[in-house]
């Protein structure tokens, strides 16, 4: 490939993925190397390849029935004031 992906681009993507990278150098270098390796895909000559899937029949799907799940599921979750899940405020 022509140029390695830039640090700014990596920082942008990290933000998109909600990942903080403090040890910039190590991460950036490794990511650049990995992406550079992926360039090998250009040589694979697969442009004309069609993406297909055998699929399954409609009748194999789940039937439309209401089944109540065990209420004790709530104990495994972070529930606030025993009703809601609390999330940080949105800006």
């Amino acid at each position, binding site marked *: 490939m022509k140029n390695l992906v830039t640090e700014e681009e990596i920082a942008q993507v990290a933000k998109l993925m909600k990942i903080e990278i403090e040890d910039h150098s190590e991460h950036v270098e490794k990511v650049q190397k990995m992406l550079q390796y992926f360039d090998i895909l250009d040589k694979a000559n697969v442009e004309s390849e069609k993406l297909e899937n055998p699929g399954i029949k*409609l009748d194999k*799907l789940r039937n439309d029935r209401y089944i109540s799940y065990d209420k004790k599921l709530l104990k495994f979750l972070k529930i606030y004031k025993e009703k*809601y*899940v609390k999330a940080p*405020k949105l800006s």
Partner: protein
Amino acid sequence: MTKIGLEIHCQLTKLESKLFCSCKADYREFEPNMNICPICMGIPGSLPLLNKKAVEKATLIAMALDCNTPPQIAFFRKNYFYPDLPKNFQITQLNPDGYDKTSIGWEGKITVDNKEIRIRRIQLEEDPGRLIYEGATERTKVTLVDYNRAGTPLVEIVTEPDFENPHNVRNFLNILSDLLENLGVSDPGLDGAMRADANVSIEGGPKVEIKNIGSFHDLEKAVHFEITRQQSLTERKIEIIQETRHWDDRRKITISSRTKEEEEEYRYHLEADVPWVNIDQKTKKELQEQMPESISTKKDRYISKYGITSQVADILASDKYFSELFEKANNETNAKDIANMVTTDIMGLLDTREKRESSKLEAEHLSDLVEYIRSNKITRSSAKLALDEIIKNGKPLLQIIKDLNLGHISDESTLSGIIAQVLSEEVKASEDAKQNPETVNFLVGKVMQRTHGKADPESTLALLKKNLGIK
């Protein structure tokens, strides 16, 4: 040339369960976070299980809107972080590059106000949860989330920008609501069951999207406002920016949404946990056969079979509740009368969902009423009173006539007695009627008043004329 396009989200409230799990599709009766399970909460290790009926119903919608439907459907992930998304991605449909079309329908059409509105795409997807802000002000410390709605099945309908004015839009939405209700897939009257966003452009200018519109009523307003805003900018030779705006319900204006720091990047890719589903011609044919009669076909049938006027047929066919009532109550000979009674009297009395739900009126009541009116056992105005009672307590008509003493007065002797009384009281009016026969209706009215509407109008008129010696 104004161009308006719509993106409508419709919940499939008539399904029993959510799109990918067995929690209830209609979440409205539950306390917060009481309609959840590992799947719709995205608990690690859980897997989505596609609802067969959702696929069938969505395909019905696609067919009703005259869309192309694929031999295989597939689902994709739309990835972004938001507290109402339990997995921080939404399972939805797409027709991305590299794949054959796999969304539930595309390139359909529907006629509104004699104009063809093109449907670009229909897709099946899951609704996110709901956010509640603690304290309703800007300074909220925390966001509260209720996931009861997360995973509810949604059908998204995207139109081409074929609408020309807000009025078109409103009509379309009404037609669409009726269609969806008629198909038995959704109850559009439920709060939040149908939501829509719009996009507006004028004179070939840039497209502005409007989001956060609470109701169809607001949609019409929002579109109207936006058109005006854009026209005003153009007149002042100010450039219209292509952007997303949101509807401020309080101030009734559209406001530019704060521009996001990064572009929306959804990293779309196939949802590998949901297999591609083959929908063959045989299945589609079966679904087509199961499809309830369309509103327009119904209307035509009412006109041709029952001789009902086009206007009445239109109103009747568009309303599922009343068309069902009509079909049950009529026996072909009384069809016109039933239809008229429904559209003239009953629709006004049962104009809200609550009233319909608590109404005790049955088809039998209707046919009895019409029969009684025909055979002069009760007057039209008494019938109205009777209707009120029936709706309240559902008692048989005979009983109600007795209870309220609504019996029809048409025999000569009783009527004559009453007429004589009225004539003696209304001396001036009697003289006027003798001079001016048209004014006799005033006296008819008085007789009706005196008898609380039970007097038969025709007999009364005839007797009055005889009494007054007019033709």
